[in-house]
């Protein structure tokens, strides 16, 4: 999704000079003589609008071929088929599985509908093997929430500071911009491995801070969150800087000149001019990074090589995220649990998106 997509959804063009400028004159509809219509032109045909009061206008190119719907559907065919199989069907099927009782993925058999699957993942209902499963509520959800509410604000704030600083300099600006973009063009697993080396017990971080903390392998759950969050922030900053910097460069210089004439202090200029004018970009970043951090998975695999701090041999999945839980259960064959967790994620993301769109209508003003 891009900024343009956001604009597309809200059906409102955001420009910086919304007030005070005369709006562009509406395009004049060219008037044609009625006689032209009789002159049967094979390429352009003038079609009368149903409302009589309006003048005739060109509504489109009447091409014999494009009039036939089948041609358009031929072009769309592959996409429609693929989207139906790999996007729409899975959506419906996953929702269905999450409500199906005793669903067997090999045969597709099930016995009635139930809410049991959701009960199982939330630890209210006993699993098929007996006993309650609480991994989802004790590890997956809290971990995901921690990651979201730590990394999203931190990374947006850092990106904002960096891009404001980058915008204020001239010399080396392009070079530094490229440097800050580098973390984006990396392999997530490769750099995750690097982070697990950096935070190794006998490596550089402990050496610099003269500590003896166990950060990754066999670490305490809460301590292990720190390298994980640092990695996620490091990984997510480049994109945010890119978006914010392009937003900053689009701000009219006049605002700053006016602030300078009024001898407005720098901090106030930042807070009262830059941030409000950047609010569309910040909102967009908030939506995308909220959704992104709810789907965090690769970073955990990259650093810990497993669901817990003990790597692949972890008895308890204490570093698990919601998506990790989903994939783990797909692999183990617990399709119903995976589907229930997937639907839960879907609902959470939908709610977040709509709430933020609602907020945007109130807050994105300047």
């Amino acid at each position, binding site marked *: 999704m891009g900024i*343009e997509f956001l604009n597309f*959804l809200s059906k409102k063009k955001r420009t910086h000079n919304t007030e005070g400028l005369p709006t562009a004159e509406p395009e004049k509809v060219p008037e044609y003589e009625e006689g032209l219509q009789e002159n049967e032109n094979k*390429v352009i045909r003038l079609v009368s609008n149903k409302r009589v009061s309006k003048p005739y206008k060109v509504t489109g190119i009447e091409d014999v071929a494009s009039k036939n719907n089948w041609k358009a559907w031929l072009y769309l065919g592959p996409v429609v088929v693929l989207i139906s199989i790999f996007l729409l069907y899975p959506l419906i099927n996953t929702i269905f599985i999450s409500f199906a009782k005793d669903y067997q993925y090999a045969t597709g058999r099930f016995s009635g509908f139930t809410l049991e699957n959701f009960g199982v993942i939330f630890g209210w209902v006993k699993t098929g093997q007996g006993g309650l499963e609480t991994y989802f509520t004790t590890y997956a959800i809290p971990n995901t929430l921690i990651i979201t509410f730590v990394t999203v604000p931190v990374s947006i704030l850092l990106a904002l500071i960096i891009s404001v600083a980058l915008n204020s300099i001239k010399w080396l600006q392009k070079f530094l911009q490229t440097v800050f*973009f580098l973390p984006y063009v990396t392999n997530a697993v490769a750099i995750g491995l690097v982070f697990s080396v950096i935070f190794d017990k006998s490596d550089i971080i402990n050496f610099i801070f003269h500590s003896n903390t166990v950060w990754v392998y066999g670490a305490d759950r809460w301590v292990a969150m720190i390298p994980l969050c640092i990695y996620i922030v490091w990984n997510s900053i480049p994109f945010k800087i890119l978006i914010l910097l392009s937003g900053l460069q689009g701000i009219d210089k006049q605002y700053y000149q006016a602030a300078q004439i009024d001898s407005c202090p720098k901090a106030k200029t930042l807070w009262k001019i830059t941030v409000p004018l950047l609010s569309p970009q910040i909102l967009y970043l908030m939506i995308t990074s909220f959704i992104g951090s709810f789907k965090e998975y690769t970073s955990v695999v990259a650093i810990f090589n497993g669901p817990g701090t003990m790597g692949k041999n972890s008895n308890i999945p204490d570093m698990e995220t919601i998506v990790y839980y989903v994939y783990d259960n*797909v692999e183990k064959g617990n399709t119903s649990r995976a*589907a229930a967790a997937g639907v839960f994620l*879907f609902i959470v993301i939908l709610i977040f998106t709509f709430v933020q769109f609602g907020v945007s209508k109130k807050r994105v003003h300047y």
Partner: protein
Amino acid sequence: MAEQVVQQEEQMTYIDFKKVRVNPNITLSIVESGKTVESIKRREKMVRIITTVLTYLFIVALALTVMFPFYWMIITSLKQNDEIMATQQTFFPNIVMWSNYSYVFETFNFTGYMFNTIIVAIFSTAGTLVTTIFAAFAFARLEFKGREPLFMIFLMTMMIPGEMMVISNYLTVNAFGWIKDQTRMDAYLAMIVPFVVSVFHIYLLRQNFKQIPKELYLAAKVDGKSDWDFLWKVMVPLAAPTLISITILKFMGTWNSYVWPNLVTKNEEFRLISNGLRGSAFQDIDTGMVEYGYQMAASFCVTVPLFLLFVFFRKYIMKGVGRAGIKG
């Protein structure tokens, strides 16, 4: 009488003016709480220089922090294992171990993973480009019933998290028989086919196609060209920058994809580079400790191709990411 008074007044003002005339040798200086204009100017200049220097210091320090993992990866990849584990960490290897790299190339099936990744990347990119071009053309130029509702449905699917699809897609791919008794071909199909369509790219390209003036289409029609010819001879060349961005992003996406290949491939030989890297065990046989030198050398090998891609296509990548905002 009256005239006389006026004359007098004129004379008076003249005299007053002469009295007030400023001596050109005196310089005017505004004094405000002990500051002259010059001192204020000087101060402002000082403040500006100091803030610039501080900004540079700050930003360079942050840039170095951001670059540090790369530096540490390279340094560690050239160290001996004893040096990595030593209590006294060094910022440059005592003995540069180029042999780490040759060891990695011998033990880590780099070329095999690379081959798989490139095959999957080429075919899924080509497939995406074809489907995207067709769909974008239909949405941008052709008129047919249900165009707008269909496009809205397409846009809505972008809101669905991909993780939700994985569950069912796994079952679908399984039903196609691409997982059981997997051959190399099956594995490739399972990794390529679900990803040859991307709604976002369709949206992106449609916007691009819409910007192409209608007059060109009319001109082509007058010349008796078919839609097909117009698409490939006019629209595709004009939208080339967007197509290049899509290609590069798709390629990067395949290079980074981990979850899906991990799920659908049952044989280590069929996996992609990220899976290979994460699954590789560079462990000391005696102690079971991870040999970080080898691991970092492998990571470096996986990172470098992306860096090269970035160096050559920086403009397209940054533009594409700015508009797309998604990896792959």
